[in-house]
């Protein structure tokens, strides 16, 4: 792509300028936030001196800690279950042919397509109705249970997409070879298929975990008293204004998500394939 003309050199320069400016646009807000989270001043944007004060206050704040605990519980439950369900859905869609498969395809893709506000509305009405009906037998309420069930509902689709992409890369002949060597269906799955699709399963699980840790809209619709998660709690605070405490909490959330990216990139490097998400 080497250009010797003046026009070529100029377009090359413009491309580079656009590239670096876009990186600045993406990273400056994040860096400024990180720097100011170590600012001692009560007034957010006036720099006084470096301190861990707000991180200390965060650790003393019961509401933040409770929200963090709720977030981790929901994320653990939702990630585990949605990874299993998403993987079996991917296997059944990629490895078998059955009637009604196209409808199943629609059912699997729809949760990705619809906006989260719509998903939130669906979950609210469904659980309100379900709790109402169940009230004749047991008293249920909105809480960590409803949040987890809702998170699983939108996560399955994402896990299935990632695992399916991985399965599509794998040659089905490998399973046939295992069968020819008298491996049972289960042995072939356990010893051949599963290890090969493991990077996809892990990638799907990380995506589910990230989505679960990030979700604000759906969670705020189906959470009950005392079951606020960290993003919902922070969202509530942010709407009222900027505080140094939010800066500190935000940086912790940011670092957590960057660590997750690191893990996912590491997994991809080991498996030698780019994430199907880039595709």
């Amino acid at each position, binding site marked *: 792509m080497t250009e010797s003309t003046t026009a070529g050199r100029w377009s090359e320069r413009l491309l580079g300028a656009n590239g670096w400016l876009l990186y600045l646009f993406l990273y400056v807000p994040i860096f400024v936030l990180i720097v100011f989270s170590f600012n001692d001043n009560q007034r957010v944007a006036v720099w006084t001196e470096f301190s861990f004060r707000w991180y200390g206050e965060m650790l003393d704040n019961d509401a933040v800690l409770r929200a963090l605990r709720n977030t981790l519980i929901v994320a653990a439950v939702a990630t585990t279950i949605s990874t299993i369900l998403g993987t079996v859905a991917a296997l059944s869609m990629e490895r078998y042919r059955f009637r009604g498969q196209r409808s199943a395809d629609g059912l699997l893709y729809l949760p990705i397509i619809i906006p989260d506000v719509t998903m939130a509305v669906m979950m609210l009405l469904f659980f309100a109705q379900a709790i109402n009906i169940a009230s004749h037998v047991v008293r249920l309420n909105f809480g960590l249970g409803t949040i987890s069930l809702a998170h699983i509902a939108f996560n399955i689709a994402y896990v299935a997409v990632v695992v399916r992409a991985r399965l599509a890369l794998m040659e089905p002949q490998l399973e046939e070879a295992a069968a020819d060597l008298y491996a049972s269906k289960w042995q072939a799955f356990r010893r051949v298929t599963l290890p090969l699709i493991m990077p996809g399963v892990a990638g799907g699980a990380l995506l589910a975990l990230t989505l679960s840790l990030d979700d604000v809209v759906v969670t705020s619709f189906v959470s009950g008293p005392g079951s606020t998660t960290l993003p919902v709690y922070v969202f509530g605070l942010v*709407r009222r204004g900027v505080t140094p405490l939010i800066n500190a909490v935000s940086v912790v959330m940011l670092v957590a998500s960057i660590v997750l990216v690191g893990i996912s990139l590491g997994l991809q490097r080991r498996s030698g394939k780019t994430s199907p998400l*880039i595709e």
Partner: protein
Amino acid sequence: MATEVATVELEERAKRAESRRGVLIGAPAFLYLILFFALPLLIVLVYSFASRSSTGATILGNWNLNSWIRVFDSQVAQIAWRSLWLASLTTVFCLVFGYPFAYWIATRSDRARGVLLILVMIPFWSNFLVRTYAIRFLMGVEGPVSIVSQALGGEPIRILFTNTAILIGMVYGYIPFMILPLYAALERMDWRLVEAARDLYAPGWTAFKKVTFPLSMPGVVAGSVLVFIPSLGAYVIPAILGGSNTVLLGDYIVSQFLSARNWPFGSALSTAVMIVMLAATIFYFRRGGRTL
């Protein structure tokens, strides 16, 4: 199986058993989605035909089309128009800056490409709420941008709580969704075709217009849909960066449930938004023809 005589009937039976096994393996996931996704979808649809009591309770009965008639009301049209306009602007800005960006990455050396791509992936995976908050923090009247501007003798920046702020926030939030499919399309492209065009004396710009751009079209369509859909339904970004008097579709729907307590109308609205999204996605599958 190998010792059996492969008659047509046996083969048919094996096929049926195989198909049954496929359904059985996926069953837990499909049942879950039927119960916790398809059924809720149906409930929303049913609610959109329900009526509302004067206290704001939803009456399941006395079915009518009132909520659906209200969806086509001029107030809603205005909100929908504003949301469509902002979502379109967001998509255009993401494309205008994202395309040269993806092109630039795709034409670097293998080594540089890896690093540059990771630098896009990090914001893509970072917590969305926090990234929006970072913009809010930066643009506030007492925020760092404003202070720098005042220190340089300028005016304090009053951009927060305007549509411009929402637009900046949405471009900031969604541009990675545009860059990644564009990059994938450009990277997969056969660059020898561009060289061939150059060998046939096509100037750089003509080669781009006639070869590169058409070949990257699937990426353009995929990226545009991936940006347009969340922008149209955006709730968090307008809530944090927008003013209290700029109502967009996302907050309008939410307010029907949390403050106005008009569930039938909110259900009709959210169904309508979903139909528009589905139409956009079907368009994408027809044009781009690729999965996510």
